[in-house]
């Protein structure tokens, strides 16, 4: 189970790292090389995003990566083959991240069958709240896959508790309002939000949106279990090289 893996890892690490890639950006081959580099750098789990034409919760960096991947002609079938290969090659757990329409068009059950067969451990679907996710939740549960749900600073304690009832694996707490890839201030305000998150559930907590340097990760130690690095590694790969992203990830927990 994903949750027990995370707890096991946490026994000897202050904080875990989850990274993110958009499959097919900048190309399928490069995506694979990026995963390999990230695994080498010691990341504990990864989300693989299947690109979608309307990524409404994503900011400019990930939005453009989605568009570029689609412009390269990447298909859902290729993405699943890619995820299959990654899950077979590397030991860390992988999650799929995408928008609900991709699952809906594929067929929610067929999609979860496929995930289970490939050894993918869970999914993050940011535009699928539990209210709309009945068939998804059932299908995920049938395969012991973890549906990762999201908390936001605008979620009340009551709402968080409700969501936690449907979540497995861990909860993904977004650090602030807005979309991916913008500035987050790691401050007292964030601390009180995280305290509310902590109070609402026994599940491990991840924090993402705007984590981009060692100081951010240090701030999160003792407050959450997982720090999520999203747009920042895309920026580094864009501006520098794939190995530079590896060095960056290593530096976060030195």
């Amino acid at each position, binding site marked *: 189970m994903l949750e027990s893996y995370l707890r096991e890892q946490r026994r000897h690490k202050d904080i875990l790292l989850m990274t993110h890639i958009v499959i097919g950006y900048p190309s399928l081959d490069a995506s694979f090389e990026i995963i390999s580099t990230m695994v080498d750098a010691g990341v504990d789990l990864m989300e693989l995003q299947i690109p979608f034409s309307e990524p409404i919760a994503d900011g400019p960096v990930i939005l453009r990566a989605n568009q570029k991947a689609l412009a390269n002609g990447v298909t859902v079938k290729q993405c699943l083959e890619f995820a299959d290969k990654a899950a077979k090659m590397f030991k860390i757990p992988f999650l799929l991240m995408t928008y*609900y329409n991709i699952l809906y068009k594929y067929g929610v059950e067929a999609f979860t069958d496929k995930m289970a067969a490939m050894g993918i451990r869970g999914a993050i679907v940011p535009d699928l709240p539990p209210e709309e996710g009945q068939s998804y939740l059932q299908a995920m549960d049938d395969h012991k896959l973890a549906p990762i749900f*999201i908390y*936001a600073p605008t979620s009340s304690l009551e709402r968080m508790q409700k969501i936690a009832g449907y979540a497995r694996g861990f909860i993904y707490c977004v650090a602030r309002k807005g979309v991916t890839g913008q500035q987050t201030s790691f401050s007292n305000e964030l601390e009180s939000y995280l305290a509310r998150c902590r109070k609402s559930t026994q599940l491990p907590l991840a924090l993402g949106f705007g984590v981009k340097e060692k100081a951010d990760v240090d701030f999160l130690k003792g407050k959450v279990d997982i720090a999520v690095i999203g747009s920042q590694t895309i920026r580094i790969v864009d501006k520098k090289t794939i190995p530079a992203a590896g060095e960056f990830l290593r530096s976060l927990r030195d």
Partner: protein
Amino acid sequence: MLKRGYFSNFGGAFLPEVLTATFDELEQVFEDAKADPGFWKEYEHVMSTYSCRPTPLTFAENLTRHFGGAKIYIKREDLNHTGAHKANNVMGQGLLVKRMGKSRVIAETGAGQHGVATATMAARYGFDCTIYMGEVDVQRQRPNVFWMQRLGAEVIPVKDGTRILKDAINEAFRDWVSNMEHTHYVLGTACGPHPFPEMVSYFQSIIGKEVRSQILEAQGCLPKRVYACVGGGSNAMGLFSGFLNDPVQLVGVEAGGHGLNSGKHASRLCSQDASVGVAQGYKTYFLQNSDGQMLDTHSIAAGLDYVGVSPILADLKENGRARFEAATDSEVVAAVDLAMRKEGLIPALESAHAFARAFQEAAEMNPEDSLIINQSGRGDKDIFTVADAFNDPAWQQFIKQKAEQYNA
């Protein structure tokens, strides 16, 4: 947990968590307003003193004679302030913004009509205003960009995706998820997550209420058919809602572009290219590929050039209550020409889709019967597109002279 906002299989609220509380608030304020008997009165008062409601129903005597079939009536939404039915929705949502105590409004716009209407509302009610508009639409509806800016709105051209209406909606959502505390997103059509389809239709129902009693007064009986163009579906919902429980055929006309087999159109309810999916927060028919990626759309009318459609209309299609047809770009230009020459009316290119289809069907209908076309907007905004379509030499000469003046 209860699913909300479904019209049989369509609709819902596929929201990122960060917006859940905002939608709860919006739904609450909308429910309170509906339950408040004074609210609709206040709304009608605004629309009759700031816009031009009730808008007239015009009997098109010359067109009726021309086709020799059904009597043709035209509902004049073009006579609203800012020249389209969009004002109905915008002023209604403006009243809700006041109730919520927010200070900024944002909106998407395709044709620019919704953007202009939102900019006037913001000016009148003292809100800050940002309008998202696809870069392609900024070019083809330039007069409306000018007016939005003069009205004090910031117009942000959207350069991502297909650079048209759907992309403007995505950007408006991205703004909203950052600024929802003070900002309301005035969605311009009967699409998006619950409660937008229902709420926009509620405000637009003022069209149907008026026109039903107007036609009864004019001729003592109901029309046989009513026609509206369908972009997101708000003017169609406004018109149809007046006749849902009557023996009246409801006809929605989508953008046929270069033809339904050309791959260059925006017909979601009457073409084979659309299928059910979930995007932009709701479930409906979308023009998408088998992976679920949205397709490029095309229409001569920016306001109809959209991948999705109202979940309420999708439901009316599935249950057979409404019929959906398409009109091509060239049929639409011909319909504008005929409406101008025969009646002196200048329909927007969007509205002209309804005209084009009604013109095709009128002749086959019985002269005892009548039909109503919703003229959702006026065509002034389309001056560049229409001038190009007619290849108007005098206009081209004028533009050249004007450009020279600016160069001098």
